[in-house]
């Protein structure tokens, strides 16, 4: 019996050689338990070594293998080829980012924005070793826990139509991670972060499409986080503009 195969159509682009990106179709063995990343690895090992893509853990933890698969942002390691068989699978780099080469995108814009929102615990004074760890109740942990699941895979940026229209917008992952630290009872950096979050390019660039929350492979709800920041920013604004006497 002939071995079953499946076609993988991959967007190729080498900026040093190609005038523009083009699709190349590869035929690979059809293995029921293979994910898209397995098929790409097969192509690189057995057919074309020049195929370039990011990957690392193969278990939806590292966030490296985000691609647009059949037009929707997915992790290559979480998307089974059996869900497409016998049809072909089309793999493209994530939308809304420049292509570095083949399936690899330039992430600089996200990295800069991510640094801007200060994704770490800010405190005026940290406990010494003798003073011990910070205690946190279960209720305090639940407030931010889901946002800690973000793996910076950028699927949400690829899904977000607002980021596509306006690259100044800080975008879903940065904003929901800022919210993660704002909601942490150990953190005192809310005021610093709000300078960015409450700006036009911050949460106000979002029109609550919700595509980010649908795309997230870790069930984080960035759209929900952004709406909560909008409420916080509105309450700050009312206090600052309408009750300036109440200002600290």
């Amino acid at each position: 019996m002939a071995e079953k195969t499946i076609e993988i159509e991959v967007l190729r682009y080498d900026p040093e050689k190609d005038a523009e990106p083009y699709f190349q179709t590869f035929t690979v063995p059809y293995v029921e338990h293979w994910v898209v990343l397995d098929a790409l690895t097969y192509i690189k090992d057995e057919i074309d070594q020049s195929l370039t893509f990011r990957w690392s853990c193969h278990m939806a933890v590292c966030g490296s293998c985000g691609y647009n698969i059949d037009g929707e942002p997915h992790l290559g390691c979480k998307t089974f080829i059996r869900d497409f068989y016998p049809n072909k699978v089309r793999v493209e780099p994530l939308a809304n980012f420049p292509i570095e080469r083949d399936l690899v995108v330039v992430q600089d814009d996200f990295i800069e924005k991510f640094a801007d929102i200060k994704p770490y615990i800010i405190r005026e004074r940290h406990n010494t070793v003798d003073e011990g760890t910070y205690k946190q109740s279960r209720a305090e942990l639940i407030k931010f826990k889901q946002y800690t699941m973000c793996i910076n895979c950028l699927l949400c940026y690829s899904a977000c139509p607002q980021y596509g229209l306006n690259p100044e917008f800080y975008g879903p992952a940065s904003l929901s991670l800022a919210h993660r630290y704002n909601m942490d009872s150990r953190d005192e950096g809310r005021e610093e972060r709000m300078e960015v979050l409450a700006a036009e390019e911050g949460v106000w660039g979002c029109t609550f499409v919700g595509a980010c929350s649908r795309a997230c492979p870790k069930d984080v709800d960035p759209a929900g986080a952004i709406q909560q920041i909008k409420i916080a920013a509105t309450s700050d604004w009312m206090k600052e503009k309408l009750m300036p006497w109440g200002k600290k």
Partner: protein
Amino acid sequence: MAKSNEPMVWSLFSAGGMIAALVTPVLILITGIAIPLGIVGADAIGFERAQAFAANPIGKLILLALVILPLWHGAHRFRFALIDLGLHGAKTALGATCYGFALICSVLAVVAVVQI
């Protein structure tokens, strides 16, 4: 990075959205469907009762909230729909037009309701 003044219109947009989603459909059901079909007696909202409601200060506030807040909701939504359709460059001009329209209609509503 300057903080945005969008909370001013966003709070009106949110409040208007709540009213447009929860109260307006009920009003349409009563005044547009139930009364014409005779399910609710027409005298339930006859002239005397409606005028007494609008003449009461609390009634005036309710009427103004029902008219003004959904106006701002619509203005904000319309502005961002046009921006999404590619008019990003005209963001400020669209803001002036949409919110200006909502503001003029709000003033007219206040004038009309206060005079009752």
